[in-house]
C-alpha cells in the first residue's frame, strides 16, 4: 500500500520536475491582449467563428486576421462592444492598436 502511494508520488514528482524545467526553456512571449480578449469572450469553444476554439478567435482578433467581433455568434452585444473598445484603445507590444468593429 505504502509502496503504491510513494511510487506514484515519486513518479509524479519526477515528471512534474521535467515539465517545469522544460517550461523554462520553452517559454513563449504571449501578447497580453490575447488573454484579456479571451477573458471577455464567452469561452464556449464551439468553433462557430471558424477558428479553433476561443483562443484561436482571440489571437485572430488581435493579429488583425478578422475585424468583426460579431463573427462570434455566441457573444452578447455589450460584450462585443466591450471587446471592440478594448482592442481599439489598447496598444500592443509594438505600439499599434488593432481596429475592430463590434
Amino acid at each position, binding site marked *: 500500500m505504502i509502496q503504491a502511494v510513494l511510487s506514484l508520488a515519486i513518479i509524479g514528482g519526477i515528471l512534474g520536475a521535467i515539465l517545469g524545467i522544460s517550461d523554462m526553456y*520553452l517559454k*513563449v512571449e504571449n501578447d497580453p491582449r490575447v488573454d484579456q480578449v479571451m477573458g471577455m469572450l464567452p469561452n464556449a469553444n464551439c468553433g462557430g467563428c471558424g477558428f*479553433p476554439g476561443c483562443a484561436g478567435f482571440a489571437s485572430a482578433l488581435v493579429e488583425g486576421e478578422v475585424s468583426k467581433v460579431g463573427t462570434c455568434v455566441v457573444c452578447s452585444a455589450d460584450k462585443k462592444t466591450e471587446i471592440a473598445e478594448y482592442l481599439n484603445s489598447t496598444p500592443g507590444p509594438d505600439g499599434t492598436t488593432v481596429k475592430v468593429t463590434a
Partner: protein
Amino acid sequence: MELFGLFISLALVNNVVLNRFLAVCPLLGVSKNSKNALNMGYAVTFVIFIASIITYLLYHQVLKPLKITYMDLITFILVIASLVQFVEMFLKKTSPEIYKAMGVYLPLITTNCAVLGVALDNISSKYNFVEAMVAGLAVPIGFTLVIYIFATIRERLEIADVPAAFKGAPIALITAGIMAFAMAGIAGIV
C-alpha cells in the same frame, strides 16, 4: 523476420483505427486538411513511441519488483499526460502555426485510446523490449497512414458532387466505413 511480421500486423492488418476502432476522435477531427492530418500523425507517433518505451520500462523495472502492478493504469496515464504536455509546449515554441492548426486536438492526444491501448497491450501481450518498441512504431504509423489517406479523400469530397443531405460529416463517416471494409479484407493474414 518475426519483428517485420509484428510490424505489418500492428500497422496494417490489425490497424488501430479501422480494425480495433480506437483513436477515431482525431481521425474525424483533424482530417479536414491533409497537412494537419500529417502533423497530427507525427505528433501521435512521437507520443506513442516514447510513451510505450517509458511505460514498458516503468512496468518492468518499478511496478513489477514492487508488486504494485495494479497501479499500471494510473502511472501510464500520468506518463502519457506529461508527454503530451511536453509536446504541446515544444510545438508552441517551435511552430505556432502547427500548434494553432491542431487546436484542442493536441491535448486530446492524452485521452486518445490508442496511446493507452499500445501501452497496455505491450504488457498484456508479454512483449520483450524490442517488440514493445516495434509496436510503439507500427501502431502510430498505421494510424498516420489511415488519417492521411482519409484527409486526402475528404479534401476531394469537399469539391465533389455530393448530395446535399450527405455533405460534410455524413459522407465522411460513410467513407471511413468503406475504408474499414477495405482493411477487413486483409484480416487474418498475420
